[in-house]
């Protein structure tokens, strides 16, 4: 099978076969990062622009390391150092970047659909590293990879996602990604954090966290943003932790081989208790490790892999 996608925009536009191919490629890429010399020449001469309009440590570093391990030249642009502060539009900035012939633009942007707009406008491959509340496909792919690695396969698993679903692009992408790969997804959170019509993504939801976690194979906790108190989503971190925090006590009523995940950054003591985050069921840092592998796979597939070999 050849990988045909030029852009990685969201989980909706990836087929089951494409997702499987990305995950298989990532599995192979993972080994490179375990070598003493962590570099292969695969993407030598390719240029990857990391175009981050939003603060990010994990995702940007992960893409940067992924590009460098494949010998691509990578460079970062952030909102504060770009011409956006001078009032340049996103499309103009992208066209200017395009004029310098990069092969891949990785974009994170606070506006949903921004990567899609770029994909329609400029010629390099676009990888969405998070657009507003819409999508975070590379996170979903690394989550799928991590679950598959630990459970053998994703199909048939029950995955609980707990927290602010409304504002979470990770939740949206995982609702689509995990159901596409055959898992059952159940969401939990207060009604204020469950967006209208989320069940059309093929998932179910409950307002009661216990109902979501007791029979689940995977529990994914989402970060609670304190500033959401201002829009009345919840009264206090204290009460949130009490009703929706993942504590050791709550873990007692879950499956013995449950996996605990979190896209980070975590709020210790709010959505997840420190001993749970650091405990034996937690695969939070495996997610980060696999993030590099997944991004290596994506860069390889869109910039140096079979797609280009075929079409060039």
């Amino acid at each position: 099978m050849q990988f045909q996608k030029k852009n990685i925009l969201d989980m909706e536009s990836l087929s089951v076969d494409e997702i499987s191919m990305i995950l298989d490629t990532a599995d192979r890429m993972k080994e490179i990062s375990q070598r003493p010399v962590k570099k292969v020449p695969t993407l030598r001469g390719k240029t990857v622009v990391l175009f981050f309009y939003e603060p990010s440590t994990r995702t940007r570093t992960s893409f940067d390391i992924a590009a460098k391990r494949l010998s691509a030249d990578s460079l970062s642009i952030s909102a504060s150092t770009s011409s956006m502060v001078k009032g340049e539009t996103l499309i103009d900035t992208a066209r200017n970047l395009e004029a310098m012939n990069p092969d891949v633009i990785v974009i994170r942007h606070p506006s949903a659909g921004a990567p899609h707009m770029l994909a329609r406008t400029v010629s390099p491959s676009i990888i969405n590293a998070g657009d507003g509340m819409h999508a975070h496909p590379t996170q979903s792919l690394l989550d799928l990879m991590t679950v598959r690695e630990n459970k053998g396969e994703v199909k048939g698993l029950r995955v609980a996602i707990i927290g602010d679903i409304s504002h979470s692009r990770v939740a949206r992408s995982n609702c689509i990604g995990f159901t596409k790969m055959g898992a059952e997804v159940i969401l939990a959170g207060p009604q204020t954090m469950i967006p209208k019509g989320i069940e059309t993504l093929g998932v179910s939801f409950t307002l009661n966290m216990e109902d979501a976690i007791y029979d689940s194979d995977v529990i994914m906790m989402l970060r609670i943003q304190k500033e959401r108190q201002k829009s009345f989503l919840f009264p206090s971190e204290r009460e949130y932790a009490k009703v929706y925090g993942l504590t050791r006590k709550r873990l007692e009523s879950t499956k013995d081989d449950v996996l605990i995940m979190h896209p980070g950054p975590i709020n210790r003591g709010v959505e997840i208790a420190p001993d749970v985050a650091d405990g034996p069921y937690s695969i939070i840092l495996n997610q980060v490790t696999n993030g590099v592998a997944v991004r290596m796979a994506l860069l390889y597939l869109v910039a140096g892999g079979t797609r280009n070999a075929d079409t060039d």
Partner: protein
Amino acid sequence: MQILIKDGRVVDPGNYDGIADIFIEDGKIVKIQSNDNPRQLPTSNEQPATRNKQQAYRTIDATGKIVTPGLIDMHVHLREPGHEYKETIETGCLAAAAGGFTAVCCMPNTNPVNDNSQVTKFIIEKARLADTVRVYPVAAISKGLQGTGLSEYGDLKDAGAVAISDDGCPVTDSQLMRRAMEYAKRFGLLIISHCEDLNLLAEGVMNEGALATRMGLSGIPNACESVMVMRDIALCELTGSPVHIAHVSTMESVRAIRDAKSRGVAVTAETAPHYFTLTEDAVGRYDTNAKMNPPLRSKDDREAIRKGLADGTIDVIATDHAPHSTIEKEVEFDRAANGIIGLETSVSLSLKLVEEGILKIEELVEKMSTNPARILRIENGLTVGNSADITIIDPDRSYIVDVESFRSISRNTPFNGLEVKGKAILTMVGGKIVFDEKNNNL
């Protein structure tokens, strides 16, 4: 100049419907002669035109066409003063004429805001110079659209304002709205209300629901509009002042207005062609030309709007013509400006309602001419002695909407490329032909 509009189907709701000839002299309608039944001339007491005179008439053959009293779009944004790169009074008037409108009401959210007689007079003077369609300024309810103090309605009325509205912004302060309704009474100024609860709007950029959720966009619930519609109906009952609800988009609003009307409340309402034509699905791939406020709603809402039009709950079709340039539209969806242009597509989109059997042609003319005139208390109708404001529509003309042919400066419409049927082919204001499809230079 003497003009004879010959053999058209004259549709003037409540007044006349049939094949007739309209004789125009010195900008006025002087005679209407029925061709259905020559023995029942509606203007039988008029002097028949002499043979000599008849030869002097310029004749417009309207066979197979619909001749209506001039269409009125009571909700447009002409952007001048202040945003002339989007539209000017001149280009807006040309677009109106090309769309079959003989009059428009322009909203006050210009820069400076039309909240004082100087701006009102400026708009009227610019419209006079444009010499195309009639322009009726709508002035601001509150100074600077700030929602904190009343504009000087007496001055504004004297300067030529026909109505007041804070369109674009809701009047959030209920007490201010009450006082505006009460104070406006003395001056006979209609209040046009933009109904929106800004707290419920929050960060919303499209209709709330499954699609917004999937697209990761913040939703705007129907209640954002309907709670304010219900408030204004209550204030209308409290004050006894008429209120006109602008751009109705939700089923709850339609229901509330229907209920209020059945109780005899002096509320009227308008909707725009996009609300009975499109649904939120048009937002599709983050198309900013489908972004407007209120947003495109669900199929059920669209159905309710159509029903509201059919049963008379919604009195008026107005476009909310809102020109924006690519500067405001070729950006991220959540950062894009709200609004689409509508003057040059309204007739075609509205005729679809007739084709689909939702409205009869005379009902459509009511909603685009008779009713706005009645609500605004401006002259209207194809009666002898009236100013010859007339629109001729070819109901059978099929064409593809092409923004590049638009007179408007702006291009922000989701209807580009759509195949439609029916079109205004001639527009006459005070006996002057301001648009004639056969002669685009007019």
